């Protein structure tokens, strides 16, 4: 058992090392020196600005990955996080700008609208799967595309700010100060970390932490979470114990979509303060899948994965200022995902083989006539 645990920890690290080697090889082939890249990473990658950047970027990745992981926990593939957070961000930005509440209530209201709209959009593939047997992957892919049309339709016809009043791109009315998330610089200053005003640690990262705790509590500490995991690991057994699989599909999708609704709020409630076509970046849903895989759907594992991913992203700035190809980080990310999933699979197989071997040994010990030599004798330990 102990051996398996250490294998499971070693596997992702070995895979990461492999990914670094592949990336170094690609750099060499393209006539760049991996040593230069390493020097830049060591010298500039860990500066304060990069750390702040990493933390801010990790928040959305973490939340997106949790949304995906909820689906994974019961063998649902919510590839539709992409569309869900886009729709949710737009509706939340619009609703948030159309009301006036005191600050904490206003923020809570925006969160609630985002969660509800994300859940509503995620309900479509859930209901289609439960009632019509439509595979959620393919319906979500369609809905991801439709989300683009839907959001630009809603924005252009109903939710855009009055023309002329707010210059620049088409978008919603900016949120008032009460609907924005404060930066954490003040709090950090009280504990002795003084950051310049140009680099702000956004309190959005706390939202991510809260969602991680909610995820842990609901999945591992509630009846719903138990049913969800049971349905995921053995649907027949779960059904026999009284879980309604169709209802579980819909509820899991609603939960996943509600979390997905938070993914895009980062920019809306901080820097940009409004929804525009560019303020909510796309692709976070797919990144979430990769991060969830790296973190093995575990709340802490995902956190490591999200920070790692965000760190790789944050390296792009120092790399490009030093005339090195910043796109190498994307290759590193891709190879990491691929090699980590392969490594996990290899470890799983080794574990299964060891278990089978152990069972065979037990079987032999039980059925076979007592061995001639003392019982410590047969040491058939396969590699």
């Amino acid at each position, binding site marked *: 058992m102990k051996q398996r645990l250490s294998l499971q920890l070693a596997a992702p690290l070995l895979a990461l090392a492999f990914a670094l080697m592949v990336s170094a090889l690609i750099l060499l082939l393209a006539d760049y020196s991996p040593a230069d890249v390493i020097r830049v990473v060591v010298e500039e990658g860990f500066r304060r600005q990069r750390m702040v950047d990493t933390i801010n970027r990790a928040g959305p990745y973490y939340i997106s990955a949790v949304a995906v992981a909820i689906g994974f926990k019961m063998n649902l593939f919510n590839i539709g996080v992409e569309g869900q957070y886009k729709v949710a961000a737009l509706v939340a930005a619009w609703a948030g700008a159309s009301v006036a509440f005191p600050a904490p209530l206003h923020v809570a209201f925006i969160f609630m609208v985002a969660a509800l709209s994300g859940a509503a959009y995620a309900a479509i593939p859930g209901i289609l799967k439960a009632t019509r047997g*439509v*595979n959620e992957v393919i319906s979500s*892919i369609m809905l991801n595309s439709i989300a683009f049309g839907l959001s630009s339709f809603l924005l252009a016809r109903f939710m855009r700010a009055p023309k002329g009043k707010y210059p620049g791109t088409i978008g919603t009315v900016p949120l008032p100060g009460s609907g924005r998330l404060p930066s954490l610089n003040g709090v950090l200053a009280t504990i002795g970390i003084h950051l310049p005003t140009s680099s702000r640690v956004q309190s959005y990262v706390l939202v991510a932490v809260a969602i991680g705790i909610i995820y842990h509590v609901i999945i591992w500490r509630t009846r719903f979470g138990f049913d969800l995991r049971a349905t995921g690991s053995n649907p027949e057994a779960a059904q026999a114990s009284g879980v309604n699989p169709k209802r579980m599909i819909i509820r899991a999708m609603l939960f996943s979509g509600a979390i997905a609704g938070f993914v895009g709020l980062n920019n809306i409630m901080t820097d940009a303060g409004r929804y525009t076509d560019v303020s909510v970046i796309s692709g976070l849903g797919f990144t979430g899948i*990769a991060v969830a895989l790296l973190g093995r759907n575990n709340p802490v594992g995902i956190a490591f994965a999200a920070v790692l991913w965000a760190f790789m992203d944050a390296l792009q700035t120092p790399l490009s200022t030093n005339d090195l190809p910043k*796109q190498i980080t994307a*290759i590193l990310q891709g190879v990491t995902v*691929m090699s980590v999933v392969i490594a996990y699979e290899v470890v799983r*197989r080794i574990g299964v083989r060891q278990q089978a071997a152990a069972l065979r040994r037990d079987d032999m010990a039980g059925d076979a006539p007592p061995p001639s030599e003392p019982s410590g004798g047969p040491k058939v330990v396969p590699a």
Partner: protein
Amino acid sequence: MTAVQKRSAIVEPSLVPKTRQDDPFSRLPRWSRYTIYLVVGVAALSLAREITGAGQLTAVGTFRFALQLSLPIAMAGLGGLWSERAGVVNIGLEGMMVLGTWFGAYGAIAYGPWQGVLLGVAGGAVGGLLHAVATISFGVDHIISGVAINLLGVGLTNFLTTTTTSWGAQTKESPAIPANIPRVDLLPFLKGPLTDLSKQGRFFLSDTARILLAFTTNVSLLVVIGVLLFPFTYYVLWKTRIGLRLRSVGEDPEAADSLGVRVYGVKYLAVSMSGALAGLGGVMLVYLFAEKFQSGQTGGRGFIGLAAMIFGNWRPGGLIMGAGLFGFMDAMQSQVNSTAHALLVVAALLLAAMAVRQLIKKAWRSAGIFAVLGGLSYFWYTQTDELPREFIPYSAHIATLLVLVFAAQRLRMPAADGRIYRRSGR
């Protein structure tokens, strides 16, 4: 990969309602059914043109554009068909397509147009091979491997674009390709009569003439190759021994193995072929449209190809219809409002045809639903002056979703699709 072990039945068997009795229409041979679909489709377009006066609906240019837009999607779909018929879900088509665009453009600039095509196809095939190694040899969940390949495809091509010094300082696109694949007239002797007929404005006949003109004149040889790959795929997969083995692997790998089929080998072949086809789709995007590589050029067409294949029930003929629908709607996006508006009449007519189809089947309730939907569509047309533009490019997506909702019980994916197969004793 305990998380996502049991993937991807498009139709989970336990959730499927009981199928209805077959009707005379479904007993017709497949080719005659497809012919009827085609005739009804053209007739609907033609009638809608007569009703609305939107001549662009069946113009030569519209159809040529639609054909060119359909083909990359169709190639991705064909790639999905090869792979899924052998039991491997390939959501990495998008990434393989991206590889096709980059290597296609690189080959075209460095060596020449045909070399570019070959290099692009090879680039896609390498992506397919990677998917094969991960899913077949290592048993990684198919969708997870596909997601990783999509990440890799985009990352690698962006990296290569910046580091290819011969392409200049551009980081997002290549210079224009110096030479393209030649364009030809396929049936030069018919061009004159067809052109005459197409200008006469006769119901159905002139529209058919325009479609034929669009498909036979000034066609890139790349398009010809793409179209020919459909009969080729049909022949190989359904009429040869290797095709039978490939499909048997997708239905029941254990049984195929016990009969001596080299399951892993066949799967490797199918998935590599799948990548090659997706790569060809990427090459087409480069050659038929921008004439250069652009980052983000594929725009999700790999995913759409997969959807078109499912729309077509894992068959080449159905895939053509699906890809055609996506391509046509894509082409409509660049049309003036009145033409796009006329689509509502097309939809109404097609829904009416569906209602008639259900009546023949004696499925009264479905017939009623289709009739009401058709009526609503026409009512919408009479009450408005334009369609919401934002939705036009996504109408094919909505149609696919509706097909999944209403026809899910009629779709049948390969039985072992998406399943991780390991030879026993390993």
